[in-house]
């Protein structure tokens, strides 16, 4: 597709009340085209009853190269886990 086209993230709801699930992405110049394209790509076989498209740019995510630092579970920092702490004597209902 030529320039000016946007990428959209597609979310499908299987039936009313269930959470929307991310299923992939599609192209579109605007909202209307994006939702039609999403319909063609992702919901033609009864996959859902409702669709959301969100411009990919509008989604805030963690830059890939920062992921290591961002998600560092700190396994070496044992004090982050509840099991590090001893229950003081005399506390009965913790």
């Amino acid at each position: 597709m030529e320039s000016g086209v946007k990428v959209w993230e597609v979310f499908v709801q299987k039936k009313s009340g269930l959470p929307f699930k991310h299923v992939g992405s599609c192209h579109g110049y605007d909202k209307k085209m994006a939702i039609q394209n999403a319909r063609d790509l992702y919901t033609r076989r009864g996959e859902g009853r409702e669709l959301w498209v969100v411009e990919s740019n509008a989604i805030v995510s963690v830059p890939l190269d920062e992921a290591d630092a961002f998600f560092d579970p700190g396994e070496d920092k044992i004090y982050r886990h509840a099991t590090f702490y001893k229950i003081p004597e005399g506390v009965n209902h913790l």
Partner: protein
Amino acid sequence: MNLELKSNESKFLIRLADTATILGQRLAEMCSKAPFLEEDIALSNISLDLFGRAEELYKIICTIENAAYTPDDLVFRRNERQYFNLKLVEQPNEDFAWVIARQYLHDVYSTAVYTQLSESSNSELAGLANKVLKEVKYSHLHTKDWMDRLGLGTEESNNRLQLAVDHLMKYVEEIFSWDEIDREQLADCDKITSAWESEINQTLAACNIERKSIQPLSMRDYRDGFHSEHIGHLLSIMQYLPRAYPDAKW
């Protein structure tokens, strides 16, 4: 193959079935050639809907004609003069504007026709018509959207759509030259004409496309099996395999 349909109902239905087949084939030619992936899939989906519709109609025809034919016979063993599709739908995919304009003109017509057929006394046909209406509604939404985008887009897209509409409109007149069979099988033919006229005029005006007055073509009617020059090539490609290998199974 010799085709001799006995009933008026099947003579009428074969017009609808052939129109769906030929348009389906035209759209199938677009597979892998649309301007971008999503549109490719959209056109292929509409094509599959058309083939599905055609098959159901051929089955109804075969039942009415006491199984004298099978749907495969009807699709693959008839020649040009035994096909009864609208000339509009056999027009080639010159460019994307042609594909969209042809489809849009067809969708507005189909909506009006199948709305009336959904009230048919033939319950099988009425059921099919209701299913078709849902499909056409989507196709119509899609093509109407593209009419606006192309018509109101750039100078180039507007020019191309104008050229496509100018050409395709030549094949519209015959659609509304209703004959006795049409009038017998449809509840109100004139209502279809006026619904089509009013929506098309409105849409063309809204998307900045002029509806020019057109010299009548000296071409004979599709209801008698007459065509433009394009049908032969289309059929030779579509029918090649089963004609070359009559025992092929798929």
